């Protein structure tokens, strides 16, 4: 009839179920105690510490061994082509995703050991702002306030945030009916609730019109005074205007970690100048070719009156600007324009990415 094990199971089921309950409760509630040593070693200035972060999907690496540290009050731009791992990095920092391996510390709190405490320090605006279309702006911000369990005085805090992101006039409107720019602002407001120490913005200016982009950038700049800000983008002008430091990610790897103004100097390549020189093109060209330290000269074919444009590249380690001036003065060819090309962030970025792509391909072969 009844197998013996079933018989015992039926007799003991209540006990078994209670044991199961206890097991689940205990395993869910166990908080790994942090040992005291950690607290002593940690340096307070470092707000975000990422060590050997790896995120794997099957055989694909979305992030491969990414490490960096961000100090309190820094504004850091996370730069990279689409699909490079920017959003993944941010999602791991905010606890939305879990890393395959590696450590993340926010303000000295390991996000694995105490996710709640770590999340409390972060305000996050994901790529697509997490808005409920069926709520008004006020209701929504009130909901986020309650969700985050803020201790700040409710009315004053929400008022302040709506003032900062200029949402006052739409506060009673349904989020569904707001324009893209306002939706983005509501998203930013949501991230600022609870006055987190770290704010993380994933592509905050995508889809906004130029005026709104400027406003958002100004807003981020003003936030930078009292917050640590991480901002991801593929718009380089944004990084140049807002961030002091850039992390460039490509194919899941960190390929550059530099101050924004130092980035230009990291490339050992020589600078190519674009010059506009007045005078007969052919003679100017031959005079330039004869100049010492000149590696290559090409006429672009572009003309302005009697002046023609040239691209000049000096030999490695030689600044050609002074000898160029002297040569042209001597020959009486007036120099109308001289500008370096390829040192703007755009081309640095492209060169860095291409370099890392090439080395990755090389490594694979």
């Amino acid at each position, binding site marked *: *009839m009844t197998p013996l094990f079933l018989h015992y199971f039926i007799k003991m089921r209540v006990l078994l*179920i209670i044991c199961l309950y206890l097991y689940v409760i205990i395993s869910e509630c166990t908080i790994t105690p942090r040992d005291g040593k950690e607290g002593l070693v940690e340096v307070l200035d470092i707000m975000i510490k990422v060590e050997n972060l790896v995120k794997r999907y099957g055989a694909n690496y979305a992030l491969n061994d990414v490490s960096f540290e961000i100090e309190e009050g820094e504004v850091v731009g996370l730069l990279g082509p689409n699909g490079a791992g920017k959003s993944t990095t941010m999602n791991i920092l905010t606890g*939305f995703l879990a890393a395959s391996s590696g450590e993340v510390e926010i303000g000295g709190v390991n996000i694995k050991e105490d996710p*709640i405490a770590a999340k409390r320090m*972060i305000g996050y605006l994901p790529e697509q702002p997490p808005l409920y279309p*069926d709520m008004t702006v006020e209701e929504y911000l009130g909901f*986020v306030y309650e969700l985050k369990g803020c201790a700040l005085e409710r009315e004053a805090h929400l008022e302040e945030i709506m003032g900062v992101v200029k949402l006052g006039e739409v506060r009673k409107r349904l989020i569904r009916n707001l324009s893209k720019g306002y939706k983005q602002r509501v998203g930013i407001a949501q991230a600022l609730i609870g006055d987190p120490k770290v704010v993380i913005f994933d592509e905050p200016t995508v889809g906004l019109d130029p005026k709104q982009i400027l406003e958002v950038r100004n807003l981020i700049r003003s936030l930078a005074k009292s917050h640590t800000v991480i901002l991801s983008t593929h718009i380089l002008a944004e990084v140049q205007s807002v961030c002091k430091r850039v992390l460039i990610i490509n194919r899941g790897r960190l390929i550059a970690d530099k101050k924004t103004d130092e980035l230009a100097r990291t490339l050992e390549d020589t600078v190519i100048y674009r010059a506009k020189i007045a005078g007969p093109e052919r003679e100017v060209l031959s005079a330039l070719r004869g100049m010492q330290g000149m590696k290559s000269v090409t006429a672009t074919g572009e003309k302005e009156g009697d002046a023609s444009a040239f691209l000049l590249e000096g030999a490695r380690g030689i600044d050609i600007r002074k000898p160029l001036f002297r040569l042209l003065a001597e020959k009486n060819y007036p120099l109308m324009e001289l500008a370096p090309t390829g040192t703007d962030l755009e081309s640095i970025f492209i060169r860095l990415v291409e370099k890392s792509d090439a080395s990755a391909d090389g490594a694979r072969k």
Partner: protein
Amino acid sequence: MLAIYKREMRSFFTSVIGYVFLVLYLAVGGAVFCFTTLYAMSADVTSFYLYMMIFSGLILPILTMKSFSEERKIRTEALLLTAPVPLWSMVLGKFFAVMTVFSGAILVNSLYFIFLTPYAFVKLAILLGNLLAVLLVGMVFISIGLFVSSLTENQLAAAIGTIAIILVFLCIGLVNSLLPSGYWLRYIFDCISIFSRFQSYTNGYFDFASLLYYLSVCAAFLYFTVRVYERRRYHG
């Protein structure tokens, strides 16, 4: 948890879903009450509640289907998952919200029996027992619905999936009652059949083991829901 609960309650009644559910539930409840009680000239509450229980299985997925799939679709889950709240409080907040709407509906339905008091004697214990049975079974349905909803971002798929699972449970219950007692398969079916455990309640007795059973099944599905989210954190 309270914040999520309040938001869910609001979203039921700012969209049509809450109203559709209540209208359907109350209308069908009224019709069932007419047929099982008024026209049948009987004060037997058990058949009313049995029909309502089965009807709940078909209609509760309307309430649960959007709980998680909608959040996933409009990407608001990023807000909930990066907020400093544990996962289980998010799941419980949603669970209690659906539970509130459902118990409200069934409590209003139960008011019909007040009209019977001048004509017939309804035993309070049996009435309460039946009510408890419906609430407990509904609780299990809701937890199944929430679990299925967390698996997909398609609300329709969530609703149909939930109904399918509930029907499987219903079938198991029906088959179970046909099996001869003492047959070993029956013990297994007894473990998984949500429909064959509330008899003592409908007879007006309180059965602690059944209470524990329903709470456990409900907790299990809610726990699975939490695990679905945990898993998604690791595997995208």
